[in-house]
């Protein structure tokens, strides 16, 4: 093999050679324009403030007019859609809610994720965390871990095992290979990303760009409605049974129209009177995907199960013939 052959092969893998490269550049351009539009809409905090009720009120008519004018100019330039100042205020409000939600979820929280089809429960999962402790309960019917939560308390991992009654102490989390991508600290980071990090920011950005509606509820909450391309919600791609799949936050495969990244899915985000997101509902066809937030910052400490069987001790006893 000549020297040039190896470098020819290297150059052959340049992404520029791929048929879809122009499409990728266009997609990146659309993505950056979307982010700029959203950032521009909310990068003027001095000109706005949030009322305790969660809705926005301009600090001064001139200030709002100035900010809204600038925002509209950017939107007309980069998104080419008609946007009113009211929509921009809503965009700023929902972004602030996402930020506040992320901050509230930092120490502790609870989320319940549900997918229904034709009104029937398809899958469900509850996640609680407090500090470095976390509990994950999968309530999906027939799922591999249906009804058997996974728990980490004080650095020890607990679960259920078909061979044992009740809880089993699986061992210290420090024994998990850090490279395996399963350490509880990494899980918690990922959960926080899905609860209030980049996942939520992306959804909120897409809703803002596509046109937001708001509806004030009697209980002081506000429902923000809009559409989000499925690809903005189910970002993770994968491969299953010969088919490309997309995965929703918290690990669920997107079915039906949601599997098409270009499909626009109806999305509703409810922000409570305290300005924190209460739930997110995404609907398409007969499917509904909901994430319900609760006790953000006030979820009680998790407690280690009493009388858990230590798998490690049991194996040591077995090894010594006792």
């Amino acid at each position: 093999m000549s020297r040039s052959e190896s470098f020819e092969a290297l150059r052959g893998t340049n992404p520029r050679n791929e048929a879809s490269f122009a499409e990728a550049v266009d997609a990146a351009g659309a993505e950056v324009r979307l982010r700029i539009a959203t950032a521009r809409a909310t990068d003027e905090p001095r000109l706005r403030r949030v009322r305790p009720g969660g809705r926005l009120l301009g600090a001064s008519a001139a200030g709002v007019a100035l900010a809204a004018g600038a925002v509209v100019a950017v939107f007309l330039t980069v998104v080419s859609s008609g946007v009113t100042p009211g929509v921009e205020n809503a965009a700023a409000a929902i972004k602030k809610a996402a930020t506040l939600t992320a901050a509230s979820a930092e120490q502790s929280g609870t989320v319940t994720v549900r997918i229904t089809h034709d009104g029937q429960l398809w899958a469900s999962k509850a996640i609680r965390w407090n500090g470095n402790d976390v509990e994950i309960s999968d309530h999906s019917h027939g799922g591999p871990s249906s009804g058997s939560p996974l728990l980490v308390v004080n650095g020890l991992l607990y679960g259920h095992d078909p061979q044992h009654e009740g809880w089993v102490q699986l061992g210290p989390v420090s024994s998990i290979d850090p490279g395996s991508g399963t350490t509880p600290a990494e899980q918690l980071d990922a959960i926080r990303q899905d609860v209030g990090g980049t996942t939520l920011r992306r959804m909120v950005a897409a809703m803002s760009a596509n046109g937001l509606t708001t509806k004030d509820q009697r209980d002081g909450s506000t429902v923000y409605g809009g559409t989000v391309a499925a690809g903005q919600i189910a970002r993770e791609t994968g491969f299953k049974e010969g088919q490309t799949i997309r995965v929703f936050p918290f690990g669920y495969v997107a079915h039906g129209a949601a599997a098409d990244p270009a499909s626009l899915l109806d999305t509703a985000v409810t922000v409570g009177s305290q300005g924190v997101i209460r739930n997110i509902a995404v609907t398409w066809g007969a499917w509904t995907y909901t994430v319900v937030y609760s006790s953000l910052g006030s979820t009680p400490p998790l407690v280690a199960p009493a009388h858990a069987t230590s798998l490690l001790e049991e194996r040591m006893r077995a090894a010594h013939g006792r």
Partner: protein
Amino acid sequence: MSEDRRQRFDGLFAAYGPDIVAYCGWRAPSPTDAQDAAADVFLTAWRRIDSVPEGEAARVWLYATARRVLANQRRSRRRHVALRERLAAEPSAIPSSDAVNPEAALVHEALARLGVLDREVLLLSEGEGLSPAQIGTVLGCIAVTARGRLHRARRRFRSIFEELSAEEHGERHSRPVSEIPATSVTHTVGGKT
């Protein structure tokens, strides 16, 4: 943003958007990650448009920014992968076009076996066409250092690629056809798995 600055930004994306998308596409673990990273790079440029140098130096500035964005993305991705692995009820793996291109798989494997910096200088040179001086700017070292590293990286890449090619060739001739996988995809480039 004033009209002048907006026009400058638009010009920046028109001129260098494809370069940054290609740079990220070569290093990010999936097309969506590459798209995210490229968008982050230009969002940074938009926010700091007054700091972006003029002319060809702007391209080098964007590469340097992309390098930092991708490093952040890799750290963040580890956390996401953790959740997917533990929480996903159904398996997920990133598909790759390399699955039908054994030579590309060999290239990726060879790149993966290089050190991080060797890989970076090689791709900046061969993929992006940067000079040693420009590579030095992206990596934060002097041109002489970049040139030396590039020389070593080229030599190592060639050696590893030839070794892998020989192994691949030997395997195909020493094993029954039925045992040879339809694809030989084990590659890692900038975190690609």
